[in-house]
């Protein structure tokens, strides 16, 4: 049973010590990782995913419940407590979606009678996130960027069903983010979003700020920001509405922006 993950600071690209030397992430936390491009956000989640033990280029250490990760996390994928959704928006796998999900369910779910349902639920979940439905006989390599991301998020949440989910810039993928956050919040896990999206950042309990390859501060979403979050969500919804209209070939009018005029 995992209760906490601890990030112990390492060093930046130039060898200087990381300003934040310890962060404890607790079960149920929703965390964002923010910072400019090249500030080391993806490297941080790779460290977490690899259970770095001062053996990556950052020198960071990741502890699970206060101790180094046991070797079986790497030896047996069924025991790996982390699902990582990378920025990949293409699959290299040449299998049909159904066969891929069944194979994945076989290694993640040891009880053979319990596999059929998650495969169906994964597909349903994915199809709520993407506008273009995915079928079980679609070939993985033929899926669009949005479909690929939607399937990876659904697969990580339902088939992997791990206590820790790392999501690298999901906002870039052309999926319904609002729906994704709603669906994900139904599962009690540690969610770590690498993001540039103010909506995702403000919906998080706190955010890890990165600069020059190091963690420079940890900001908790305070009362003032929670108020901002409501308006940011409204802005964001309005923008998605405008985006959808543009996609459908419609014209935009001032009426859509009335609340912000």
């Amino acid at each position, binding site marked *: 049973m995992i209760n906490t993950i601890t990030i112990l600071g390492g060093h930046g690209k130039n060898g200087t010590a990381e300003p934040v030397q310890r962060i404890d992430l607790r079960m149920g936390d929703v965390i964002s990782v923010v910072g400019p491009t090249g500030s080391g956000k993806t490297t941080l989640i790779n460290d977490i995913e690899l259970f770095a033990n001062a053996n990556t280029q950052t020198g960071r250490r990741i502890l699970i419940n206060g101790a180094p990760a046991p070797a079986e996390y790497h030896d047996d994928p069924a025991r790996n407590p982390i699902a990582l959704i990378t920025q990949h928006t293409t*699959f290299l*796998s040449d*299998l049909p979606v159904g066969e891929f999900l069944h194979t994945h369910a076989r290694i993640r779910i040891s009880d053979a009678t319990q596999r059929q349902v998650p495969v169906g639920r994964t597909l349903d979940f994915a199809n709520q996130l993407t506008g273009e439905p995915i079928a079980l006989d679609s070939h993985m390599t033929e899926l669009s960027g949005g479909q690929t991301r939607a399937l990876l998020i659904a697969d990580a949440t339902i088939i992997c069903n791990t206590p820790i989910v790392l999501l690298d810039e999901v906002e870039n993928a052309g999926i319904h983010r609002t729906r994704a956050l709603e669906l994900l919040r139904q599962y009690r896990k540690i969610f770590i979003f690498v993001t540039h999206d103010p909506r995702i950042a403000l919906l998080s309990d706190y955010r890890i700020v990165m600069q020059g390859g190091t963690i420079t501060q940890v900001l908790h979403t305070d009362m003032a920001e929670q108020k901002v979050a409501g308006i940011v969500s409204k802005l964001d919804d309005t923008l998605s509405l405008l985006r959808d209209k543009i996609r459908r070939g419609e014209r935009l009018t001032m009426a859509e922006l009335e609340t912000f005029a």
Partner: protein
Amino acid sequence: MKLAICAGPATTGKTSVLRHAIRKLLESGQRIAFLKIDVQYAEEDEQFAREFGIPTRKVYSGELCPDHCNVMVLGDALRWARTNESDVLLVETAGLCLRCSPYADGGLGIIVLEATSGMNLPLKVGPMLSLADVAVVTKIDRVSQAEREVFRARIQDVAPSVRIREVNALYGIGIGPLVDHIRAIPDVPEHMRLRGNPPVGTCTICVGKKEIGWQSHFGVVRALDNQVFYRGE
């Protein structure tokens, strides 16, 4: 002295994996000798000699099948490594035959596969995978985690007893367990034998008869619609 033979399709990262393994073995005080077998071009021997100052050799198999060449030269190579007072002889093969496997009983067989190579690859590589002791999977950062896990399952389907080690060969992450495997193998016995069975006999194509179609050949042949059969006296 210990022997580890490394196979795997071209460009999967055999050399990068061995580079990290050699570094760690040297750090732990082991003396290493390295032999590269390839068909017509290789420079890993020069790289490793330069980087690590270890004794290295290379053999071009040329007209000979490279795995066949491995069997031929391995006895000499073991003697050569012994005269260099090595603790471990690492052999990197050309790694291109999907019918054979170059591993010898009494040594460690390592196959290097890349996670980017498609989900059916483990089914295609045959004895090179199923007779290995350790399968190292590289390029894990290039695919989604879901695909990594399914690729691993596909390896286990074909080769249930092979131990799988995922490695990031850029940074050498995950190399430790492979080095532990190498260190744990016993010294080579006096008489060594190839682990797998070579393919059926020598054929007339092997000896240079180039006509197309089984009708022009003798010995063990096969037609498109028939099983293998014998043609000749």
